[in-house]
């Protein structure tokens, strides 16, 4: 697997700083699980955060803050939930959905209750705590197009299985496409296997084509 399409630095910076909306962050973190190069870039950015922390003028803590913290330490057990990898665990035939995405939807792709989108395509809406930006898994049959649509805002699409092609190139597992309001694109899934991707957008998808617009409200898309 070679990734050719990466998130640009401004998306990685929002992730590194902690300012990013949960939906975009879910997409970026899932790309990072598949992309060591971008993980290295995020680490560089976290170094900047460390530098800012070093240089900031301190604000005095409240009276008794240290004592309050010290009394809490006695009851604590060390946190081993996010430990370093103890042995190589990567499997080429491993889950289609990397963490954190897999936990957000509650299981790997074949376990989900997909909803029909029409034309053989399916979707699964990812439950999130932060409103305003939606994340959904899409499953497009091999060789078939997603109905043409354009975007009011920003859309990120991360491929997890199979591939799709549109006028900006070919996207396979780990590739991330960033599409803005100008792009009216018509992605077509590559032959062979269903294309599964995570699509995150801050605008309602508008499907052009009369039949699609009639059906759209009933499908909740």
């Amino acid at each position, binding site marked *: 697997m070679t990734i050719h399409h990466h998130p640009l*630095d*401004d998306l990685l*910076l929002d992730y590194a*700083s*902690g*300012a990013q909306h*949960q939906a975009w*962050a879910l997409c*970026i*973190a*899932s790309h*990072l*699980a*598949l*992309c*060591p190069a971008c993980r*290295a*870039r995020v*680490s*560089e950015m*976290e*170094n*900047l*955060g*460390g*530098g*800012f*922390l*070093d240089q*900031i*003028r*301190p*604000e*005095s*803590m*409240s009276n008794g*803050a*240290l004592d*309050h*913290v*010290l009394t*809490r*330490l006695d009851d*604590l057990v*060390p*946190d081993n939930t*996010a*430990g*370093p990898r103890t042995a*190589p*665990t*990567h*499997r080429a035939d*491993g889950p289609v*959905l990397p*963490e*954190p*995405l897999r936990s957000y939807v509650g299981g790997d792709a074949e376990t989900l209750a997909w909803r029909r989108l029409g034309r053989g395509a399916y979707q699964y809406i990812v439950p999130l*705590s932060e409103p305003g930006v939606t994340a959904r898994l899409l499953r497009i049959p091999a060789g078939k197009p997603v109905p043409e649509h354009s975007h009011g805002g920003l859309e990120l699409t991360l491929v997890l299985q199979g591939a799709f092609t549109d006028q900006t190139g070919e996207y396979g597992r*780990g590739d991330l496409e960033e599409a803005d309001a100008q792009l009216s694109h018509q992605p077509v899934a590559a032959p062979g296997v269903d294309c599964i991707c995570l699509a995150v957008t801050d605008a309602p998808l508008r499907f052009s084509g009369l039949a699609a617009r009639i059906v759209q409200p009933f499908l909740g898309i």
Partner: protein
Amino acid sequence: MTENTTTHADLLNLVGAKRDTAAFESLFEHFAPRIKAFMMRRGVASEVADDVAQEAMVNVWRKAHLYDSAKSAPSTWIFTISRNAHIDLVRKLQRPELDPNDPALVPDAAPDAPTMIGAVQDADRVRNAMSHLPEEQREVLMLSFFEDKPHSEIATQLNLPLGTVKSRIRLAFTRMRTRLGDAQ
């Protein structure tokens, strides 16, 4: 390489290996007021900022045994703990993060492959590279980290098109990578 950052790494290792409360107190004295200031710069009220700083230091204690000075400078590591405490306590969200033990995770290349991962010396070089940026590029980076603003809000605050903010961020990192690459 500054003396302070080496000392902080030693203190973290003492906390991790021996649960040394004297070492923890030294770390608290240095970092808690800085974490609090960081949170206040992000618009958090001072009492809440005090709570976030305390929670972050509790997490430093709990996770000190996981700290690896070859992978990050102490202030970088504590920045990430503070960032996550802010998301948890103030935004009240779960931060999406990869799982290092996930079978789907694509592992890093061999340890001796050239990377930009920060250790003590690299962190200093990154900060030095940032000081050489044009003011408008440094400004967007500082707004991202200090004020916890996604670039859409930065654009509004600086009265700039969103595309300009994005390109300044990208230019800033390209410039820093060039400088850091030359310094190898």
